[in-house]
């Protein structure tokens, strides 16, 4: 990952953005910034407003409140009544459906943005060739665009988007129409390209893996609001809310009473209704009387014998084993709750086994209180 | 009304002035002859006061006529044959509709018509009163009796007469053939008898005339037969010939001749009371777009030549009222028929509203 220049001015700033879809508010006050050369991903389930936010930045949706600034200059401002049309914002976009123009050749598709800018023909030819080369589509330059496969169209859409050297690239779920194998490959290529060109990107996806693999920062959205902003590590390792915890990777949520009297070593103790005791880390979040912690399924470990030196050890019974190929999912009975443990499938643990379960306290993350999380 | 050309202004002023001069008693044509800016020309075989060269330069004639399509086209064909440089175009509609149309247009400031032909004197009077006709005295007026010209002369004339009796389909007829007007009221004709629509001038004359003879109840009886009303005599005889109607109350003699010659099984009855007849009125229209052509047409129509065309064209077969007209193609002269005309044309005209109301009622409108 390229080093973040912490003190540089943000390239894109979104402030208190509100966008309506008809009468329904789709984006209800979203704020974030994107540093130059970074990729920021908007992640969330369908209907959360991520695409609408992206399109508002592009200029294809008209917000009803807030401000969007690019390089410090507002392109949309409700207070100052500014709304620069999309074609004047100098951004570029890759659409979910690729939007390849079927009546033009591949060359003409890619050259479009340059033609709009009245670039001389020789320069166009050179730039288009270069762009097609970067996406390995040089051989297809003369083809009619309607004859391309999905993956090929995707590459052409990409080439078209950066050929005129925009400073910002917007991606609207560009890989969601590709099959899984291709998606994986394209993910890497896109990331590679973005680094090479050093373009600031705003990327929209509902695919968790994609977001984690490609982003410098992630904005998790739900119902038109921001749930959490952070690096992939932060989002994954330190979810702030139950929603983020469960959306970004699979997690077990455990509720219980705070046992302040049992705190030790800077750890907090939580007692479930069924009497189980678990130690976790607060990470600066407010500690109330009732607590919820999140434990990732991969962080729970199953051992035949109780490991020493950790306060989190319990005897558990394996109820069910589900083989998932690369890993297995174990459903264990823990007190009166069921937890899910993900472990490597190399050593199968048969159902019915009585084993010990443990987890490092630093992996037991305290979530912010519900009210604060969904504000 | 403002006039367009100086020349027209001059002539009109002279004409008006002429009639105002204390020269009453002297026949109008003589007075006009003094006031004319030139003496009549002879073109082909008739006289005209129109500037033929100018008319040909105008190159067009717009004719509004009540005749059916073929008839109107036929009239235009005759004129065009004699004056090929003048392109003809026409609008046809039954007299009532035609008159309504031209009035609406003139009221809106549209003056697109050169010559008007109607099948009813009543609207002709009205149009004359409204200064719709151009006052133009044709040198061919000498061929006509005063009764067949407008009063004063120069507004319109009778280009022909359309007489009508009873006609029936001889193959489909049940029972005895009708003999007189009263016979059309027989209940066996119910749903099988035809007549003309209320816009027809001939129908108005028949209504007036038969009412005068047989009283108000006549047409009330007729209404019970639920007659079919048609726009043109051609359509009417078409149905008669094919048997869609058994009999018609308005069997126009010209149509009878035409269809008989085509081999239709139709018979004509001339009732002893007489044939109802309507004059066919032609006049040049005021503020015409092609004034010389319109005057030329009037002269042509009035002339022996034009009248011969009107009489012999199979789509027309009019009876001519020109004093020196030959017999019709069938050998019959108009004077051989007993014709039923209104005696008092003014009284006739005043009855129009009553006619329309009753007739529309008969037809269900």
């Amino acid at each position, binding site marked *: 990952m390229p080093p973040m220049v912490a003190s540089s001015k943000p390239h894109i700033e979104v402030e208190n953005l509100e966008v309506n879809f008809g009468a329904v508010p789709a984006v209800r006050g979203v704020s974030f910034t994107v540093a130059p050369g970074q990729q920021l991903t908007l992640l969330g389930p369908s209907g959360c407003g991520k695409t609408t936010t992206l399109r508002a930045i592009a200029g294809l949706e008209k917000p009803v409140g807030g401000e969007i600034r690019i390089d410090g200059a507002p392109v949309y401002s409700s207070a100052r009544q500014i709304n620069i049309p999309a074609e004047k914002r100098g951004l570029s976009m890759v659409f979910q459906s690729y939007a390849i123009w079927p009546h033009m050749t591949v060359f003409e598709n890619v050259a479009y943005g340059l033609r709009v800018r009245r670039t001389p023909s020789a320069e166009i030819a050179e730039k288009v060739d270069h762009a097609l080369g970067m996406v390995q589509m040089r051989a297809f330059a003369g083809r009619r665009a309607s004859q391309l496969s999905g993956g090929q169209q995707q590459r052409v859409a990409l080439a078209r988007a950066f050929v005129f050297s925009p400073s910002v690239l917007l991606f609207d779920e560009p890989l969601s129409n590709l099959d899984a194998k291709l998606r994986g490959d394209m993910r890497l290529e896109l990331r590679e390209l973005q680094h090479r060109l050093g373009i600031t990107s705003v990327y929209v996806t509902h695919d968790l893996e994609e977001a984690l693999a490609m982003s410098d920062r992630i904005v998790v959205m739900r119902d038109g609001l921001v749930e959490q902003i952070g690096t992939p590590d932060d989002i994954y390792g330190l979810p702030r809310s139950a929603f983020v915890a469960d959306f970004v990777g699979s997690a077990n949520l455990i509720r219980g009473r705070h046992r302040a009297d049992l705190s030790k070593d800077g750890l907090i103790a939580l007692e479930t209704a069924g009497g189980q005791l678990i130690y976790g880390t607060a990470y600066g979040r407010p500690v109330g009387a009732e607590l919820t912690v999140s434990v990732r399924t991969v962080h729970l470990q199953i051992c035949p014998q109780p490991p020493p030196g950790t306060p989190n050890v319990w005897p558990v019974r394996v109820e069910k084993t589900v083989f998932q190929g690369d890993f297995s999912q174990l459903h264990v009975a823990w007190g009166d709750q069921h937890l899910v443990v993900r472990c490597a499938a190399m050593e199968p643990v048969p159902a019915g086994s009585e084993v010990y379960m443990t987890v490092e306290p630093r992996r037991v993350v305290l979530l912010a209180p519900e009210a604060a999380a969904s504000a | 009304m403002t006039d367009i050309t100086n020349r027209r202004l001059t002539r009109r002023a002279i004409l008006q002035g002429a009639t105002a001069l204390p020269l009453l008693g002297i026949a109008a044509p003589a007075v006009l002859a003094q006031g004319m800016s030139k003496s009549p020309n002879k073109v082909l075989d008739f006289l005209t006061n129109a500037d033929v060269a100018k008319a040909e330069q105008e190159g067009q004639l*717009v004719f509004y006529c009540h005749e059916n399509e*073929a008839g109107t086209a036929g009239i235009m064909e005759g004129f065009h044959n004699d004056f090929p440089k003048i392109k003809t175009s026409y609008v046809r509609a039954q*007299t009532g509709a035609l008159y*309504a149309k031209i009035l609406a247009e003139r009221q809106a400031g549209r003056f697109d018509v050169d010559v008007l032909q109607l099948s009813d004197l009543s609207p002709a009077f009205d149009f004359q009163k409204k200064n719709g006709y151009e006052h133009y005295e044709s040198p061919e007026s000498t061929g006509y009796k005063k009764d067949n010209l407008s009063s004063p002369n120069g507004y319109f004339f009778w280009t022909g007469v359309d007489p009508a009796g009873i006609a029936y389909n001889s193959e489909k007829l049940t029972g005895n053939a009708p003999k007189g007007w009263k016979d059309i009221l027989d209940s066996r004709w119910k749903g099988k008898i035809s007549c003309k629509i209320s*816009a027809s001038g001939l129908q108005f004359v028949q209504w007036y005339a038969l009412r005068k003879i047989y009283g108000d109840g006549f047409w009330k009886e007729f209404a019970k037969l639920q007659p079919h009303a048609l726009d043109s005599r051609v359509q009417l005889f078409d149905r008669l010939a094919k048997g869609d109607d058994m009999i018609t109350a308005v069997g126009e003699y010209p149509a009878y001749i035409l269809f008989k010659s085509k081999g239709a099984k139709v018979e004509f009855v001339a009732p002893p009371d007489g044939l109802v007849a309507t004059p066919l009125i032609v006049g040049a229209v005021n503020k015409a777009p092609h004034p010389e052509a319109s005057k030329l047409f009037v002269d042509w129509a009035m002339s022996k030549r034009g009248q011969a065309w009107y009489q012999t064209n199979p789509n027309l077969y009019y009876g001519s009222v020109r004093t020196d007209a030959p017999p019709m193609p069938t050998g019959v002269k108009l004077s051989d028929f007993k014709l039923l005309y209104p005696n008092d044309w003014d009284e006739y005209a005043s009855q129009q509203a009553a006619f329309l109301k009753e007739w529309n009622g008969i037809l269900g409108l």
Partner: protein
Amino acid sequence: MERHPRPVSAAAPSAGSFPAQKLAGYGVAAVAAVLVLYPVFYLLQAAFDTGDPVARPPTEYGVDNFAAVFNYPQILLNTLTVSFAATVMALVIGFVMAWILARTNVPGRRVFEQLMVVPYYLTPLLGALAWSMLGQPESGFINQVWRALGGSEHIIDINTAYGIAWVMALFEGSVAFVMIAAVMKSMDPSLEEASQVMGASRLRTMLRVTLPLVIPGILGAAIFVFAEMLGSFAVALVLGLPSRYYVITTAIYQFVQQYPPRIQLAAAMGVSLFAVMFVMLFLYRRVVTSGSYVTITGKAFRPRVVDVGRLRYLLFAVCVLYLLAAVVLPLATLLFASVQKIAVAFPSADNFTLHNFSAAMSMNAARSALGNSLILGFATATIGVPLMGLLAWLIYRSRLPGAGLIEYVVMFPQAVPRLVFAFGMMWAWVVFPIPIYGTMWLLLIAYLTVFLPLGVRTISGVMLQIDKSLEECAQMCGASWTFRTRTVTIPLLWPGLIAAWLLLFIASIRELGASILLMGAHSKVITPAIVESYFGTASELTATLALIQTLVIGAAMIVLVAFTRRVGAHPID
């Protein structure tokens, strides 16, 4: 879609594309508004004018004219009877044909589908003329044959309400077929398959699954067709007038033609009719856009074709029968009549003649009318396509405020019978300072106005199929509105624009209701000319004229279709 209106700041760098969009958008909206609302205003004015008919502007206003309308209950009843009967017949024919052609494996399906639109091109006028010759009680050919075979009196009487409805259904009912076929094609076949998998018989599936699913669509079609039939004119004119059977449209025509013309009554009748049609169309929209349309997903499915076994030969015969009744028989009848002096079913040898053809061609009206119609067709289509294309864009794609209102204005002529609209135009444009009354210009304006719904709907149908993202992408590449319209939108629309052009061309040539009131001496057009011929000449001559018109237009169509097929295949780059 309501947005809070936020004006673009003047401080922003000059947004060059926005004024261009606004100019084009509001400009074309203004044109549409004038075209549609100007005549409607005069129509309403005349309907409420209770003063002296000759005085313009009106001296007093009131509702007496509408009260007078109820003096003619028979006419109102006739209109309802005929429209209802015609709708039922059209729906039956449409449903049967749609079922056969979309759902069964009858041979020659493709060909039949193409042929189903031929009656529309032949025009209801021609159908009425032909069926008049076939079905008159005395002189009708069918009845003559019937009597020759020993029957008595007549077997059909085309001059009755049901005769008129039959011809209307045959020639104006193909829209029912198109709509119902569309409904059938948009049904998800897996819904039926699910029923069958659970063991239901074919019949049960049809009754319990298929029928209930298509009923909303059929209901919509029924309402739409009923509205169309209310405004039908040509058939009632030819078949109803001579036998005194009036409907509202022909009554209006008669009132206008009388002397003195009863303009106020005619206007009131027209306004009443269009109020009813308006309500019908409003209902139609409610039915079509209501939530019960789970089957209409916008995707075109391949409907499941049912193997009907031996039945398909019977169904084939049914299709052939329809085409016989609607295409072959009428054309053959006209041809048969045109070569006779006096048309009968069993002519003697000396009854044959070619004189009618020479007479027809020498008729000034015929020649000039044909020429005028072709010219007008070209003009209407060529001006109409850009005009309606812009309107379609304005309503369905632009985000300009007020666009939704324009949709109502544009679709408004749909609710008004052509004749009534033309009446308003006649009344309105006669007082217009520029002298277009009685000229081809007035006809052009009239056609553009009454075809607005047709053109806009056709083009918008194509436009909506184009993925918005194709245009948005051009925007993101920096293209101004004019640039991207030229380089992306129009090329993509091109085949649709060509189709719309053809549609407008045909529509203007077959137009009757508007033209018949607005024709002048120098602006005769063919379909009203044929009607005039019907009322003013022998029927054989009229048949000849109609035949000649069909041949010439048919030839023009073939040429145009061939030409546009080449042009439409390769959109400009």
